[in-house]
């Protein structure tokens, strides 16, 4: 089995387990899991309320032992991304074949124009690593 496929399975398995335990506040149908040779992204999308998406993003990030999510503003479209990410060889432990230590990891959801961040997320914004803009 290829390395990528193995890691995709590990990630999908993890998310399914979180969903079964009720730890993810949104339907797994609202999750997008993407992986390539160097990076992995979980995006919480769909029509769930913003606070549920934020909670789901936090839960997935915590399960992956990633840093706490913070808001980043994209200069390209001025949308705000609630993003948690890490870089290779940092933070995420490599537990055998399914480890993520050499992957760029990202968990994100995106604010639509009609939504406002929950107050507790706005508080986190001050701790963001400078944002993308």
């Amino acid at each position: 089995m290829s390395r990528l496929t193995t890691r995709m399975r590990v990630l999908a398995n993890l998310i399914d387990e979180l969903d079964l335990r009720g730890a993810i506040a949104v339907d797994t149908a609202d999750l997008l899991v993407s992986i390539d040779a160097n990076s992995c992204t979980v995006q919480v999308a769909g029509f769930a309320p913003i606070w549920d998406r934020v909670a789901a993003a936090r839960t997935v990030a915590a399960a992956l032992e990633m840093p706490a999510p913070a808001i980043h503003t994209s200069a390209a479209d001025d949308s705000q991304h609630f993003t948690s990410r890490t870089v290779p060889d940092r933070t995420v432990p490599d537990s055998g074949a399914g480890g993520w230590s050499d992957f760029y990891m990202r968990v994100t959801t995106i604010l639509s124009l009609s939504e406002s961040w929950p107050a507790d997320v706005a508080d986190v914004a001050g701790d963001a690593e400078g944002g993308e803009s």
Partner: protein
Amino acid sequence: MSDLTATTAADQAPEATTNRPLGLDAIALGLARLQRDTALSDPVTTTIYGGDELVVCVAPEDLRAWAHALGLPAPGYADVLVDDDGWRRIEVAGDWDGCRARAYALVPPGDAGVLVGRAIGRYRVVEVAADGAQVDVAAVRP
């Protein structure tokens, strides 16, 4: 995580229905089994949308094999789309093991002839004439 060589509940054939999402893990497991049983190369990007759709971006030369393995239609000229920047996207879609599946390849501008030919299994052979003009000597070759 279950061992792929062992029989697990998730190893059972997924129900062929589009009414219920198979789940992220079921699709990922199906993909793992597919790659285990074939000589398919790794996709460039693998994405699972909401537990009921698999999308693989693969190299142009791998597109036909991936389409075949997923039971999708073989890519042809009609599946080649060109965007405003000149990139070609060759994409086929269908159902695979109870979920929607798409396989596509991207070809950058300038490489269109050879790479699109590889993606759809046909080669466009072009010779350059003495006056510099390009001449098709065999527009389509298996």
